[in-house]
């Protein structure tokens, strides 16, 4: 409009007309406090359990705000407020099991862990006592063997996919198969290793190495995926600079591409290890379970920490004369705390390596 001067007051009038009253920012806080107060009062007066009170408080807070908003702000704003409370509530609810689980494991496990628990096996242990020494060694050996199998295969596959196989049929098929492998249920991996070794050594075979084979089947796709992603992030300028100096392709990969992506690759490998270290089902099937220390991957049964937890849980032993829980449960919680600590430390290490090395490769973010 060319004659804009008379219009301006009009525009203000229109917006003032359209604008609806808004609840102030502190209304949310008031709503939460009120809901908590009402729920707390009802819980106290009627003698409900605190959990019921908590649920009531959450429901009241989540419904109170939209209702208030419906009265003041109108239907659309109320729907928005409702969606906001539902989203916040669902996040809160999902946190409950995580916090509950970690709190329980720490509370029940911390009292069990002592030097005896860490340095004794379960040989000839009937009541209390015993420890996880054999399971710790089993976990370390089997996971190490799985890593030794799967890191070269996974890394070289990633190198093939990124450096050599661009667009070839084999590369497409491999990408698809890696996707399929990601979805293999862990127990099927165990059955595969079992049937492989049964076919070679007869039906009674149970060896730690079989567990390593099963775990590597689960680990390879994770390693391939993460390494592939990291190799793709390496700028092609670096490769081309190296080619321009007359360096052969394989030395370019070894000396330029891999070192640049090293941080990300290690992060991926550590995360893959932390994923397979907690696997139970395949080891239960193919590595069996034992009460004694076994350092030989190729001979005899081997227990790992997850299998140990399952064993102590399913055969907890006899309740002592003092009553209470059977002694196996305490050992299971203790082993669970050790296992979770290992997994969390691995995750943390992966993150630290990731952020420490990240600026070299991903400057854009």
């Amino acid at each position: 409009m060319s004659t804009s001067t008379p219009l301006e007051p009009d525009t203000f009038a229109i917006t003032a007309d359209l604008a609806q009253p808004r609840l102030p920012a502190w209304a949310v806080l008031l709503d939460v406090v009120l809901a908590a107060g009402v729920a707390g009062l009802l819980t106290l007066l009627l003698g409900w359990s605190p959990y019921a009170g908590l649920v009531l408080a959450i429901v009241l807070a989540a419904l109170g705000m939209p209702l208030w908003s419906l009265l003041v702000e109108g239907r659309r704003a109320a729907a928005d407020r409702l969606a906001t409370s539902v989203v916040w509530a669902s996040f809160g609810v999902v946190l409950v099991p995580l916090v509950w689980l970690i709190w329980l494991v720490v509370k029940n496990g911390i009292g069990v862990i002592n030097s005896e628990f860490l340095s004794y096996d379960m040989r000839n242990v009937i009541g209390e006592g015993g420890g996880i020494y054999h399971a710790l060694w089993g976990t370390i050996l089997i996971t190490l063997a799985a890593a030794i199998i799967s890191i070269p295969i996974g890394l070289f596959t990633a190198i093939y996919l990124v450096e050599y196989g661009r667009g070839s049929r084999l590369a497409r098929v491999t990408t698809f198969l890696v996707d399929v492998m990601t979805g293999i249920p862990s127990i099927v991996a165990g059955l595969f290793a079992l049937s492989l070794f049964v076919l070679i050594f007869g039906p009674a075979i149970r060896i730690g190495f079989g567990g390593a084979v099963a775990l590597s089947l689960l680990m390879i796709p994770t390693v391939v995926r993460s390494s592939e992603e990291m190799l793709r992030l390496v700028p092609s300028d670096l490769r081309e600079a190296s080619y321009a100096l007359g360096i052969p392709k394989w030395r370019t990969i070894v000396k330029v591409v891999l070192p640049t992506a090293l941080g990300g690759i290690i992060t991926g490998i550590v995360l893959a290890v932390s994923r397979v270290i907690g696997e139970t089902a395949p080891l239960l099937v193919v590595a069996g379970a034992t009460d004694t220390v076994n350092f030989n991957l190729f001979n005899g049964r081997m227990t790992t920490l997850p299998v140990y937890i399952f064993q102590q849980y399913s055969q907890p032993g006899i309740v002592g004369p003092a009553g209470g829980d059977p002694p196996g449960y305490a050992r299971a919680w203790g082993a669970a705390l050790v296992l979770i600590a290992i997994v969390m430390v691995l995750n943390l290490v992966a993150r630290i390596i990731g952020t420490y090395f990240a600026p070299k490769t991903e400057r854009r973010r």
Partner: protein
Amino acid sequence: MSVTAPPQPPRAAKPVVRPGDRIFAGTARVAALTIMLALAGVFVFLALEGYPGLSAPERIYAPATDFWSYVGPLVFGTILAACVALVIAVPFSIGVALFISHYAPPRVAVPIAYVIDLLAAVPSVVYGLWGGLALAPATRPLIDWLYDNLSFIPFFAGPPSVTGRTMLTAGIVLAIMVVPITTAISREVFAQTPRLHEEAAMALGATRWEMIRLAVFPYARSGVISAVMLGLGRALGETMAVAMVLSATPVVTLNLISNSNPATIASNIASNYKEATPDKQAVLIATGLVLFAVTFVVNFAARWVISRGERNLTR
């Protein structure tokens, strides 16, 4: 230099092939082939060892009489547990994914995503321990309440279990294990919504929820569907959590809160591996093959949906 590579400008200038190159390229290709071989091996070895299990002596299948009536209730139990898990997990995953991508203040969104990923890092056996010893007793009041008020629905027909080790508990534990997977994928898809679509919706006066309904959900639909199916794949194959929570009987029932619950294929293998006479072992391996086939189909469908969605987006 790869021998068959199409001439790409910077590399075509270097036709010399050194032995080192050949060895390195060969190793890389062999590694890729190994993966193909391993996956084929899974099929072949399971089939070889499982085949006798299809026609083992009748007493092996007790109380059923042949393989298909043995595996039938197991398949049913597997699907039922997975469905319960998904019904619980999917709304929460979408809620949490929205929370991370659109609701949480940007500064805390990254740590929150990390915390949700932590849920995936907890080993399944620890979930099983927690589910069996802590969650199961804690669901007692809930089960009783469901039975008292909703027993006309076949899912809650009761009688309520005294231990709390029910299909419902197993479903809840599975749901907690599924949530991080579906959340992670949905979150990424939500975050990829074009900023212009969102801002256009806001500029037209939409509230945040209307913006999400109009701009984010239509864009993310196929991604969310595939996330749900990948979660389904995980729930179908999960072993320990179910084996540690359920005490199984071979029944087919929709009842979620009673003492007699069908086992899942995976948990059945885990709890019977010990009495593995060669015949029984073959039967268990055959059920494992069935499980592999089911999860393969589910994952394949999920990938297909993803690739179709990607094609639609690029168009």
